[in-house]
Structures are given as C-alpha cells and as structure tokens.
C-alpha cells in the first residue's frame, strides 16, 4: 500500500466533503427509516444522478442538476402525496432510464454516467465541499426544529389534523432536506455509495441503540467510521470509491447485525 498518497493535497477537498456527508446522511437515514421511507432515498439518488447528467448536457454543473433532480422528486413526494414503495419504485425507474439514456446520447455522458455509478470521490472539488458544508449547516439548523414535529407525526399521526396545525410544512421541509442530502451525496460519493450511507448505518443503529438520541449518534458514527475505512482502502488499493464504501458499510452492518440481538422480543416484560 502506498501511504504517501494520503498526504497528497489533491485529496484534501474530496476527503473533507465526503466526511461531512458521511456524518449527515446516516442521520437523515435514521429519520427516513423511522418513516419507513428508506427506499425513497434510492429513488431520490437515481433522480439526482439523472439530474446531474441532464444538467451537464445543457452546460450546468453536475451538483446543480443533481440537486434539482432530487429536490423535484422530494417536492413531488411531499406535495403530490407520492409515498410508498410503488411511488419510490417509479422514481428509481424514471431516474435510471433517464440516467442511462442521457449517458448514451450526450457527449462524455457515458463517462460521467459511469463516474456517478462508481462514485468518484476524488474528483470532488470546491463545489462539492461547498454543497457539503451547506448540507451540514442546513441539517444542524433544521433538524432540531423538525425532529420533534416529525417524531410526533410518526407516533401520533392524528395530532396535526386534530389541532389544525400545518403539518405539511415540516414534512416538506424534511423531504427537501433529505432530497438535497441525497443529491449532494450522489454527486460526491456516487449513487449507491450515498444510498449505502443512508441505509446501512441507520439499520445497524436501529438494532442496537437503547434510545433515539443514541440512534442518531450511532448512525452518524457508523457512517463516519465506514467512510474513513473506505477512504483508506479505496485510495490505498486503487479501488473505485462508491463500491468500496458500500462494501465497508455492509461489512460493518453485518458485523453489528451478527453481534446484536434483533429488536424483536415484544412482550418480553
């Protein structure tokens, strides 16, 4: 393994951008999992990837196209009531077919499409870092306000209607935040690398966390640990980053799953 490569300034920006994303996406993933909407993240990631490629086709930055693609999906999901596995399945198919058709019919589209699928973190620059900082700032600012409303709406779903409260506002707010997070993750870490960060750390944290605050911290910690390990392995062994990140997430998740007691045992008073 070539250790000197880790000191190369070329990788500082990608490392910092990915690190921020690896801390935020698992927290969003925990909320998506609690809302039983984790599959929506895969739909949004496909829309983001397709948006990135369509953006490039018309001369817009990939990050802008990815954000618009995912935010459009998030808005339709929230305002149009497009929820549930069927809607997310359609989002995946729309994103996937658009992504591959755009890749096949635009100049350099094939290479960019492959990069989005592979997750070429090392090409991330100031745009990706700025987007990751913005995402982190939005999450840190918005989640403490949204979280109580989202949890209450999840466990006491009649509350907002009964009290004539505008519940749609916090659902839309979270949907857009999740869509932006997935878009930034997809444009920086690749489609399935971002999805792995949404799904696996939250899944593992749900199995072992003793409470909600622990769930959020554990998910973030597992995400960051998986990211650091993947960064070292992918760079040192010259592997594509996205699949390496997904593999490390799966290994960590599998280990936690094997060592933990499943969260079943209802009635075990």
């Amino acid at each position, binding site marked *: 393994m070539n250790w000197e490569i880790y000191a190369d300034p070329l990788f500082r920006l990608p490392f910092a951008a990915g690190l921020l994303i690896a801390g935020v996406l698992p927290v969003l993933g925990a909320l998506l999992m609690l809302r039983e909407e984790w599959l929506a993240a895969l739909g949004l990631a496909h829309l983001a990837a397709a948006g990135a490629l369509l953006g490039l086709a018309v001369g817009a930055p990939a990050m802008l196209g990815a954000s618009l693609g995912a935010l459009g999906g998030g808005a339709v999901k929230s305002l149009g009531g497009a929820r549930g596995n069927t809607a997310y399945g359609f989002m995946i198919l729309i994103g996937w077919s658009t992504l591959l058709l755009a890749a096949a019919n635009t100049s350099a589209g094939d290479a960019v499409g492959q990069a989005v699928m592979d997750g070429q973190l090392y090409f991330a620059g100031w745009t990706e870092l700025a987007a990751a900082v913005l995402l982190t700032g939005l999450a840190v600012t918005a989640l403490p306000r949204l979280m109580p409303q989202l949890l209450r709406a*999840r466990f*006491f779903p009649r509350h907002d209607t009964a009290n004539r409260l505008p519940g749609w506002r916090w659902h839309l707010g979270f949907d857009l935040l999740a869509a932006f997070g997935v878009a930034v993750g997809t444009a920086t870490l690749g489609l399935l690398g971002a999805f792995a960060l949404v799904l696996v750390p939250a899944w593992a944290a749900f199995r072992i966390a003793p409470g909600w605050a622990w769930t959020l911290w554990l998910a973030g910690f597992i995400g960051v640990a998986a990211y650091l390990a993947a960064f070292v392995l992918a760079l040192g062994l010259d592997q594509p980053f996205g699949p390496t990140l997904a593999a490390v997430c799966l290994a960590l998740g599998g280990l936690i799953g094997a060592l933990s007691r499943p969260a079943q045992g209802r009635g075990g008073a």
Partner: protein
Amino acid sequence: MNGNPAAAPLLRLEQVVAGYAAPVVGPISCSIQAGDVLGLWGTNGSGKSTLLNAIADAARIFSGRIERAPGLTLFYQEQRPVRLPAMPLTGRDLLRCAAVPAHRQPPGSLSHHLDRRIDRLSGGQYQLLCVWAALAGSAELVLLDEPTNNLDPEHERLLALLLAQPPAHRDDRRAVLLVSHERAFLESVCSRVLELIQ
C-alpha cells in the same frame, strides 16, 4: 351560558351527522366541560370512532356543527397505536414526542418501562404508555379510542388509575372523551356515559 370562560364547554356538538362517503353516525348533540370524563358507548359499527374522527377533523360532517372553545388543544389516541417493526425509542422518548413534561411520572408499574425501548414492551404496556402520553401533556381535550382493547384485567385497572390522574398543572382545564364497547369499564371510570344507538 355565563361569561366565565372556565364554565364554557370545551366542545359542543349540535345535531352532528358525520361519516365519510356517506353518513355513519348522528344526529348527536352534547357538550363537554373541563373536568368531564365522558364515555361513549355503542355496539360495533355504531359510529363511535367516526364521531371521534369528526371531532378531530378527520371525518366529514354532513350536517350540524362542532364548536370548539377558542384555542382548544386536542390529543387523539387512536384505536391501534402506531407500532413499527423497529422503534429505537425509549418510553421517555415517546413521552417527549407528546410534549409530556419531564417531571411527570406515570403511576403504577408504567414508570418501570420509561427507559426501555418501546418495541420491547408488550402490546398492553405500549398502549398504556400512549394513553399516558395523551393524558399527561397539556392537551385540553383528550380523545381515547377503545383504550381497553387487548388489556388484561391488571392493565385495565392501571388504565383506570391513569384516567384518575389530575392534569399536568392544577389550573389546567382538561376533559376526556373515551370511546369503548366495554360498558362496565365506562361506568366505572366516566363521569357520564352516552350511548350511541345504530
């Protein structure tokens, strides 16, 4: 009616006919005052839950009117509490979701479950925790739909104990509208019982 806001009803129903695609229940008239624990009894299909839904703006009102006291806050605990495959929240987390003050301890054995994950509680324990979440917060009108479902006699006694607890603050006005098909339970815990005839 006098000018004392404390004496004004929290909720007044006037000849309410409610349902969804078609009327299910009514016409019904009644009022609920602070301090009431009003029981609503009826056979299956008599429209008890529909009436609660109408009060909570979740069903259609075909005729009549429902008047709420200005700024009335509600807590609606549905017949089946939301139960997910994995819920990594403690009982305390759940109460925090319902804005229950941290210092309010549930009576009886329920307090032993506050630091356990709610997906590791039995159905009855979880149901009672949800009822406590409804009663211990600041809601002025608490709607409970069939809270005795799936409860064994011991948990039913604990439910009666929960219903007897005072509001969060001494000056708070609170009323409970409790739907059940168990007439004996309603008679034992309610200040009044209304019967819905299909």
